[in-house]
């Protein structure tokens, strides 16, 4: 059931929020052991919120489509009175006295929080094999990674524990787990969603966004969380719109960019055929497929790496005296960041401006790009390298190769499932658009979804 369907059932009184929440908690109770998706479960508070939601609906107070809907937060969103660990030993006992802006807005929209979700340590990695809180497992195959860093969010949504989950994306951390877990995930434009009350990783790269079961569900969450917040100095005053695509939305006449060079190099064969199939479907729905040449994405990725290495090490500098605080992979990245020269950080930020201008010109030719989200489906937990197009490739570098650059540009990107691999794992594509064109890319995603692009629900019970 999607948020939309649950919302309709709530208003028909065929189900209550308490019933939805009880069912969700029962699923968490059954599946969290094997999947390790939650770090903290706030069952009593969730049921109290659900009772409140039911009382309000009965009294005629309707907070909108998220009213009474069970959701959860990646554990880097501050939650007043509820432990917020960032998946790190550094914050294992941190109980904030404020809520993140996103938490405030979703509570105001009536959503019911079930708790806090596991993630890659400090959101600095793509496996979600957390050394302190356990490895999150992929609901489609528990031997496989859910991706990350928002791995708990992907696993919780895919396994049906929650209707939507909040994640963050600094170099692909919403889109990678969405792709590997077979959910929809939206990284909005930088500044579209407030970062107030979140644990930072890359100050100029961090984006907050939802993962959900459908494109329209992601849009419904975006409606609740988008908008200016004076407490976040990177927050944008760009006007918000209704992001939920209309029923029967169309992409007829839209110009969809097909960036074959780089984005279709070195893909797993199942990924390539699924994404090409979705592009063909877009064409059959009336979109014009326009071959385009993107700016140098390898250079864009390198810029992103220099910026992230520098910003993450600056963010965590005060903690670097004690190696025992960190898992091995995060410790290594933080030390790498200490070696980047200030001049190179500045050069990367200058190159970023130039690349952004080059990408701007691309939007004169097309309305969006449809690209693979990840070059491979979920690898086995613990795999360090994978074989792609005949070459052994580092899993982390492969997983971030197609997504990282979009964070550097701050553009909105929607990841959605578009097929299953030969071994039954989800394959994801991403739709990338101009800054603040969330409504447009969600419209494309919804039209594709309505047009049959997608996968069956995860079979986990």
């Amino acid at each position, binding site marked *: 059931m999607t948020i939309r369907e649950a919302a309709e059932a709530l208003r028909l009184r065929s189900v209550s929020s308490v019933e939805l929440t009880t069912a969700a908690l029962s699923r968490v109770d059954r599946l969290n052991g094997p999947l390790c998706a939650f770090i903290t479960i706030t069952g009593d508070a969730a049921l109290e919120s659900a009772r409140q939601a039911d009382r309000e609906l009965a009294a005629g107070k309707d907070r909108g489509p998220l009213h009474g809907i069970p959701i959860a937060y990646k554990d880097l969103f501050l939650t007043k009175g509820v432990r917020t660990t960032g998946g790190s030993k550094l914050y294992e006992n941190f109980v904030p006295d404020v809520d993140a802006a996103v938490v405030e807005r979703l509570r105001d929209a009536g959503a019911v929080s079930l708790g806090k979700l596991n993630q890659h340590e400090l959101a600095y990695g793509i496996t979600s094999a957390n050394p302190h809180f356990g490895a999150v497992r992929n609901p489609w195959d528990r031997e496989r990674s859910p991706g990350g860093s928002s791995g708990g969010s992907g696993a919780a949504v895919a396994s049906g524990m929650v209707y939507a989950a909040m994640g963050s994306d600094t170099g692909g951390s919403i889109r990678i787990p969405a792709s590997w877990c077979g959910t929809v995930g939206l990284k909005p434009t930088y500044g579209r969603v407030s970062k107030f009350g979140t644990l930072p990783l890359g100050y*100029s790269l961090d984006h907050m966004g939802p993962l959900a079961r459908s494109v329209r569900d992601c849009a419904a969450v975006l409606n609740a969380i988008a908008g200016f917040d004076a407490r976040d*100095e990177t927050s944008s005053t760009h006007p918000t719109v209704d992001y939920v695509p209309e029923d029967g939305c169309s992409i007829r006449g839209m110009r969809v960019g097909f960036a074959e060079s780089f984005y279709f190099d070195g893909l797993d064969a199942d990924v390539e055929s699924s994404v090409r199939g979705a592009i063909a479907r877009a064409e059959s729905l009336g979109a014009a497929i326009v071959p385009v040449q993107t700016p*140098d994405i*390898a*250079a864009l*990725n*390198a*810029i992103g*790496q*220099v910026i992230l290495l520098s910003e993450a090490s600056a963010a965590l500098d005060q903690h670097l005296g004690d190696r025992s605080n960190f898992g091995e992979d995060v410790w*290594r990245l933080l*030390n*790498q960041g*200490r*070696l*980047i*020269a200030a001049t*190179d950080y*500045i*050069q*990367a*930020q*200058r*190159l*970023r*401006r*130039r690349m*952004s201008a080059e990408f701007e010109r691309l939007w004169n030719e097309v309305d969006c790009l449809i690209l693979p989200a990840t070059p491979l489906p979920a690898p086995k937990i613990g795999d360090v390298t994978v074989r792609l197009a005949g070459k052994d490739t580092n899993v982390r570098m492969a997983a971030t190769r197609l997504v990282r650059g979009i964070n550097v540009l701050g553009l909105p990107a929607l990841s959605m499932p578009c097929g299953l691999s030969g071994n039954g794992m989800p394959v994801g594509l991403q739709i990338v658009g101009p800054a603040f064109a969330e409504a447009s890319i969600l419209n494309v995603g919804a039209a594709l979804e309505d047009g049959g692009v997608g996968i069956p629900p995860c079979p986990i019970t």
Partner: protein
Amino acid sequence: MRVSGEYMSDWEAIARARGITASGKELEALLAPLQTLETVFRPAVRDLPFDLNPAVVFCPGTAE
């Protein structure tokens, strides 16, 4: 150090100067990704116009 006409960082010397005590395979695992990164990043920097501002700039009056 110059590689292919570009200035390239000596990561091992920088690591030592920053007080990183790792050695052998641990040091190699730390530095190899930086070396790879450098080969893509350094050439991209070459032709930047002098008046191109970084994407992160200070805006007076907006600080907390």
